[in-house]
């Protein structure tokens, strides 16, 4: 009886477009859904540092290197905002990291693809961050207060990421024929995985149902994907590249671009651990975490020693 009452109040807050805060009553499934979604989001930010980190030492200029370092530092920061938001739901940072390492928690499949040329750094910023921004702008209005606040902060920082990527692509596209080809090749490889970032079609999306009623998600996968396509086509034309989709065409009546079928078999393969780099990405994270154990131990020993000194004094 008590729960029914709680549930009604909870849904009333959500329907009024107000926010749920950490200490408020919430259904267990709401909490679980949030932990899964926010932690996956946090892990994606952190794992996403790897394909770009791979290019720090090979950035083509000092300017490019400084920008890349700042961008990667932002990604680390975004991961930390999200971990903190997730921890307000009653899970610890240690548990979150453990879930990533054991494979219980996932991260975005896009980061299992390699960044093989400098143009890939452009494509990642322009397309991968571009797709992420479309999703994150929508999530600024999510019903859980700490998640919403993290999203607002992230969105403020993220548009630099997309613009720096687009600048790289634009420069390459206007360069020598080889450079233009490199840019087109990166677009060819990153286009479809970027569309997959929005997840399965609405008709096949296993987690979407309650997420919409609870306003954790505000717009569906297909709506967000369409928005990304519609704004990216024009940007592609401006720099003289071509989206690798023969079926892409403007639909006058609907006012949107129609697109070809996404290869969901590839999507499922990558999600289930068979992408090009799943094992390497995770192994890198585990080894960085384990190699950092002595730092955590030293910091804790120092903190304990300071506490003792305060007691003695």
């Amino acid at each position, binding site marked *: 009886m008590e729960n029914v009452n709680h549930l009604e109040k909870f849904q009333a807050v959500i329907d009024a477009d107000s926010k749920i*805060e950490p*200490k*408020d*009553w919430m259904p267990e499934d709401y909490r679980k859904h949030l932990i899964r979604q926010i932690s996956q989001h946090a892990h994606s930010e952190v794992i996403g540092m790897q394909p770009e980190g791979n290019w720090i030492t090979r950035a083509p200029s000092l300017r490019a290197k400084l920008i890349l370092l700042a961008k990667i*530092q*932002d990604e680390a*920061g975004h991961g*930390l*905002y999200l971990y*903190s938001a997730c*921890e307000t739901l009653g899970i*610890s*940072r*240690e548990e979150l*990291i*453990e879930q990533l390492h054991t494979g219980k928690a996932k991260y975005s499949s896009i980061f299992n693809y390699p960044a093989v040329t400098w143009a890939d750094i452009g494509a990642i910023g322009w397309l991968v961050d571009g797709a992420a921004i479309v999703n994150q702008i929508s999530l600024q209005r999510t019903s859980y207060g700490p998640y919403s*606040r*993290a999203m607002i*902060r992230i969105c403020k*920082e993220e548009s630099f990421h997309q613009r720096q990527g687009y600048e790289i692509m634009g420069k390459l596209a206007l360069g020598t024929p080889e450079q233009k080809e490199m840019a087109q090749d990166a677009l060819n490889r990153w286009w479809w995985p970027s569309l997959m970032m929005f997840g399965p079609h609405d008709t096949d999306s296993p987690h979407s149902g309650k997420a919409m009623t609870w306003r954790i998600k505000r717009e569906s996968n297909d709506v967000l994907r369409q928005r990304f396509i519609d704004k990216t086509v024009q940007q592609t034309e401006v720099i003289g590249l071509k989206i690798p989709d023969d079926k892409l065409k403007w639909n006058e009546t609907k006012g949107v671009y129609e697109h070809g079928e996404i290869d969901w078999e590839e999507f499922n393969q990558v999600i289930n651990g068979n992408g090009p780099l799943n094992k390497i990405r995770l192994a890198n994270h585990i080894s960085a975490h384990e190699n950092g*154990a002595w730092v*955590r*131990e030293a*910091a*804790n020993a*120092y*903190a304990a020693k*300071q506490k003792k000194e305060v007691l003695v004094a």
Partner: protein
Amino acid sequence: MSNTKDNQGQLWEVFVQASPGIPHKHSGSVHATDKEMALQNARDLYTRRSEGTSIWVVPSSAIVASAPEDSGMLFDPSNDKPYRHPTFYVMPEGAKNI
């Protein structure tokens, strides 16, 4: 608390003053094992783009928060006490600057 090997430090709440003269506002949290590290982490995480002129960090465990179920009692709008607002009072005709 889990074992030392995995311990990420305690949680601290971060308050940033965006410009001189205005109140510090809650920005988020950081993990740190001591107060210097908390301040450093807060700087690195929350003020990379001149977002602030001053930072406070407070151990999360030191914050006492009101409970959502008490909010009715605590934050009653007191509509029965209109005399707390200046518009309640009738000023003499013609009085200026009051």
